[in-house]
């Protein structure tokens, strides 16, 4: 018999097994973030040429581990928790096959530990992309494979839970938008993991000597089938969380269910095709395919993101106006709860993802423009805007919400929690902006020494490149402090936070469900449909969210200007064909 508890504060229902799995995955994610953050500090202090902290071998080791722990382990563990929340919790449904949930968790845990061990043993400093023919230790690949299998199981449990919810009629009408977003993420994840298997399994066999040769270009093409689409999982997941937080904090409803869901559909249909923008300057790949792949496939996905970029803040604006914040274009935004880290994390995530991550991503994904950007530090700058601010801060925001609701602990250090999003978001934004600049001056990514110490021939970067890297690194250090503050507050709350009724013991906070008495065998009430729409407002011919529309136009204009600046810059380099 499935056991549930109700959260007295939010009315959410938690299925006991799902709850333990959500906690376990979230805690594992936090540990990965901690490791990644410590490594980030070492990496960024090495890239700050005036500090130049680590020796070369340790730098490449730390960078490999930073990329994998942050982008793969932190994000995907957290996404597993999101999938359980979006299926079991939001749909008030028992989890399908809880035992397999633990298989998911253990496989991912073993995989993550194994890959980290391989990296820190020192023989696998191959970077997250592990381009062949550079070879890592076999357990580096094996760990990633086990992790991916675990994640795949997580996706199937998610789908299974949706089926159970449908059969047992735990909800009325269609699944909620947030769950729909999670479905998108999970579908893309299945494709992604398939690509991953196609490339990582042969690479593993090659590392143990079973296969003699792996074509380096073929590896790149297939690897980016994995590498690119995994980023679409993140986008789909963090957009779902934007909608979730807009709903939680403001009671916002999607402006149009049809538009938002169609935009998600575009992600499924197109995003995971668009791997070509990672291999634009590779040999032997035709321009026709590149143009097709980056535009047809990518721009329709970009269109989807532009739509969410309007509808998420738009839904907040509509909700706020409904509460009477109706003065001028922006009162709704000014009067938003800027001191609530759930909201501020989400909003910073949205803005930085759109303005910095989105624009730079599309610009450098333009076939020809890529040649002035490929493999410069511009690239990490771009994806720190997308994943380190966009995805990570969305996840941080929802974590703040989950501490009292899921773990039944009051948040400690509320003062620090108010500023934490600004610290992390601000620091990372500085890092992103200045490293974008350094990349434009040609500073290389994954590079230990801008001075080329020991090289037979030299090259001098302009002084400005050093300045930009220095300021960027300084921003990175602030970002690490902000990340540290996040872990201090959240993990600290699990240990020291005041227990809320129904209460949790210390161990209960880390994985186990709450005291048995909280649960009952009673089936939750069927999840009703949202309250009917107010008569005016939605679907109307007036602009319901004019402030958001203005912000969207600002985004568009910045986008257009920046896009053509880059064409102009491209026109100044040597003629090529």
């Amino acid at each position: 018999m499935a056991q549930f508890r109700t959260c007295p504060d939010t009315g959410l229902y938690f299925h006991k097994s799902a709850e333990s799995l959500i906690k376990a995955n979230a805690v594992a994610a936090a540990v990965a973030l901690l490791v990644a953050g410590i490594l980030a500090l070492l990496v960024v202090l090495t890239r700050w040429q005036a500090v130049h902290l680590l020796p070369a071998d340790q730098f490449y080791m730390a960078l490999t581990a930073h990329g994998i722990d942050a982008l793969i382990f932190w994000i995907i563990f957290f996404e597993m928790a999101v999938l359980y929340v979006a299926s079991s919790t939001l749909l008030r449904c028992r989890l399908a096959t809880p035992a397999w949930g633990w298989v998911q968790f253990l496989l991912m845990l073993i995989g993550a530990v194994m890959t980290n061990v391989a990296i820190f043993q020192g023989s696998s400093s191959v970077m997250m992309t592990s381009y062949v023919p550079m070879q890592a230790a076999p357990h580096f690949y094996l760990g990633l494979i086990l992790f991916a299998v675990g994640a795949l199981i997580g996706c199937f449990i998610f789908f299974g839970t949706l089926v159970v919810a449908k059969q047992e009629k735990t909800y009325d009408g269609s699944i909620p938008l947030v769950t729909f977003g999670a479905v998108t993420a999970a579908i893309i994840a299945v494709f992604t993991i398939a690509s991953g298997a196609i490339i990582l399994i042969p690479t593993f066999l090659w590392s143990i000597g079973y296969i003699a040769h792996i074509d380096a270009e073929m590896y790149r093409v297939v690897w980016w089938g994995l590498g690119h689409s995994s980023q679409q999982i993140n986008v789909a997941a963090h957009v779902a969380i934007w909608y979730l937080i807009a709903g939680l904090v403001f009671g916002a409803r999607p402006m149009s269910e049809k538009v938002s869901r169609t935009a998600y559909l575009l992600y499924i249909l197109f995003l995971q095709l668009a791997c070509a923008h990672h291999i634009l300057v590779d040999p032997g790949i035709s321009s026709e395919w590149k143009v097709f792949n980056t535009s047809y496939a990518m721009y329709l996905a970009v269109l989807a993101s532009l739509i969410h970029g309007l509808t998420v803040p738009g839904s907040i604006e509509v909700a706020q106006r409904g509460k009477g914040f109706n003065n001028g274009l922006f009162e709704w935004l000014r009067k938003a709860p800027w001191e609530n880290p759930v909201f501020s994390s989400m909003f910073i995530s949205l803005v930085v993802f759109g303005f910095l991550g989105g624009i730079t991503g599309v610009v450098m994904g333009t076939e020809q423009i890529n040649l002035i950007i490929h493999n410069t530090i511009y690239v990490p700058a771009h994806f720190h805007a997308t994943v380190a601010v966009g995805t990570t801060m969305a996840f941080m925001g929802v974590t703040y919400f989950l501490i009292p609701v899921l773990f039944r602990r009051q948040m400690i250090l509320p003062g620090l929690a108010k500023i934490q999003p600004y610290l992390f978001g601000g620091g990372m934004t500085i890092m992103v902006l200045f490293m974008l600049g350094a990349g434009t001056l040609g500073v290389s990514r994954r590079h230990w020494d801008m001075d080329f110490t020991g090289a037979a021939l030299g090259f001098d970067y302009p002084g400005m490149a050093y300045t930009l890297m220095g300021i960027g690194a300084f921003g990175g250090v602030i970002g690490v402090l902000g990340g540290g503050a996040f872990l201090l507050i959240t993990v600290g709350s699990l240990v020291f936070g005041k227990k809320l009724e129904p209460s949790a013991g210390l161990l209960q906070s880390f994985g186990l469900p709450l005291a048995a008495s909280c649960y009952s065998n009673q089936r939750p009430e069927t999840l009703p449909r949202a309250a009917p729409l107010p008569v005016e407002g939605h679907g109307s011919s007036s602009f319901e969210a004019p402030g958001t529309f203005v912000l969207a136009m600002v985004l568009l204009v910045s986008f257009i200007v920046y896009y053509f600046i880059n064409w102009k810059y491209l026109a100044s380099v040597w003629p090529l064909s």
Partner: protein
Amino acid sequence: MTSFMPPADRFWWKVPVGRQEIVWILIALTWCLIMFFMMPYWHIYGKQNLSNEAYQTTPAKFGAKVQEGIDQNKVGEEAGLPIIHPPAGSDVYMLARLWQWWPILELEKNKTYRLHLSSMDWQHGFSVQPININMQVVPGYEMVLTVTPDQAGEYGVVCNEYCGIGHHTMVGKIYVKE
């Protein structure tokens, strides 16, 4: 409250879409189309385009070509690396290996060359600085880049694909003479 609840209207797909969203979608779609057309446009009218010419090769075959180029066109040496001055318009071969760009090139301004690039071992990144042109160099593949250096000067070829512990020492040179 409702993004995580089932839509209020059971037939949500029949609810008409607001004008604001429609306008924005049309604007965004137009912009996406413009961005799409820019790429073919640049192929026709722009001067900086990516090469579509590439061949499969082997380190031995490519290395022999590079050596041939050095034998024919060597004009000097710097830091133990040969400098070649190939004829304008000709095929120029440069290889990447741990951790060298080999040989050094001396080109003439406003002359066009067919530059062949390949790797002898791992992947490398051909990054000409400070002009900032970046290409991926992959073992087993020979990329042919038709290039017309139109500014004289001394250029560094930085390796910008991580290639092991000596990656930061992998710097080559291209001289462009008036």
